[in-house]
């Protein structure tokens, strides 16, 4: 009786630690006024999710979660936040009232999110039967993922590269200043940001 409990204990404890860390960090992301803190807390949340992926025997996803998500995408966010240099939500009302405690339609958003939690948890706990622990041994190795990615899903992989190319060109066009100036400036202020 005592041996299996002690054997499975670290995994359960790690699940709750990582899960609580991810939930608390995500809550703090949407509770911060300063977007720089939000981005840094989201990186912490991604680290906790990466630990959960390790618990799920998915080392490939855990590694690219850190390298691609926390390393590349979040640095892009951080770069834009620091480039824009507009850390606060800039109305006077926002300085007095916390962003999550405003009235009106925003309160409706909180109610909607809480209803979504209740509904999803209710559906998951009441809907199907109680799921047992995961079957052992069925671990998808990185080699198997690579083989499947380049054989079964090779077309989708190539389409992904086109998507990245289109997104890159689109981002350059959207963020470049020269296109607007050549067209006559438009109606925007000619600030040098």
């Amino acid at each position, binding site marked *: 009786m005592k041996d299996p409990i002690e054997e499975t204990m670290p995994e*359960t404890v790690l699940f709750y630690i990582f899960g609580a860390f991810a939930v608390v960090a995500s809550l703090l992301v949407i509770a911060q006024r300063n977007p720089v803190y939000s981005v840094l807390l989201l990186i912490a949340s991604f680290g906790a999710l990466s630990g959960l992926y390790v618990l799920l025997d998915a080392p490939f996803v855990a590694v690219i979660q850190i390298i691609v998500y926390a390393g590349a995408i979040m640095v892009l966010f951080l770069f834009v936040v620091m480039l824009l240099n507009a850390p606060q939500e800039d109305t006077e009302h926002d300085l007095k009232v916390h962003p999550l405690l405003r009235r009106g339609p925003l309160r409706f958003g909180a109610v909607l999110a809480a209803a979504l939690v209740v509904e999803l948890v209710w559906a998951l706990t009441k809907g199907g039967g109680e799921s047992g622990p995961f079957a052992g041994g069925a671990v*998808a190795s990185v080699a198997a993922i690579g083989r499947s990615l380049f054989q079964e899903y090779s077309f989708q992989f190539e389409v992904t590269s086109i998507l990245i190319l289109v997104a890159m060109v689109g981002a350059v066009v959207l963020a470049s200043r020269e296109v607007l100036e050549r067209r006559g400036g438009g109606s925007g202020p000619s600030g040098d940001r």
Partner: protein
Amino acid sequence: MPTLNHYLILSAIIFSIGTAGVFMRRNLITILLSIEIMLNAVNLTFVAFGRALGSADGQIIVFFVMTVAAAEAAVGLAIVISLFRHHESLNPEQFRALKW
């Protein structure tokens, strides 16, 4: 031992946090971050289901979701930069005109 339901409930909670962020915040950067939170909650669902079914497909679709998230972040942040250059604000309530 955490079961599949544990992971799904955790994913549902994180997804709802992201939804609340999209609804309740008035900062474009934070809204984009909330969308990233939602994408990550869905990724956790995919990996948990893939582990439960014993196949690699759950992890492969996470790879594709991350690619789409990168493209979305690049284009979204470019739009945010362009909007900020025109309006000097990140508050979505200030962007009322479709034509700018």
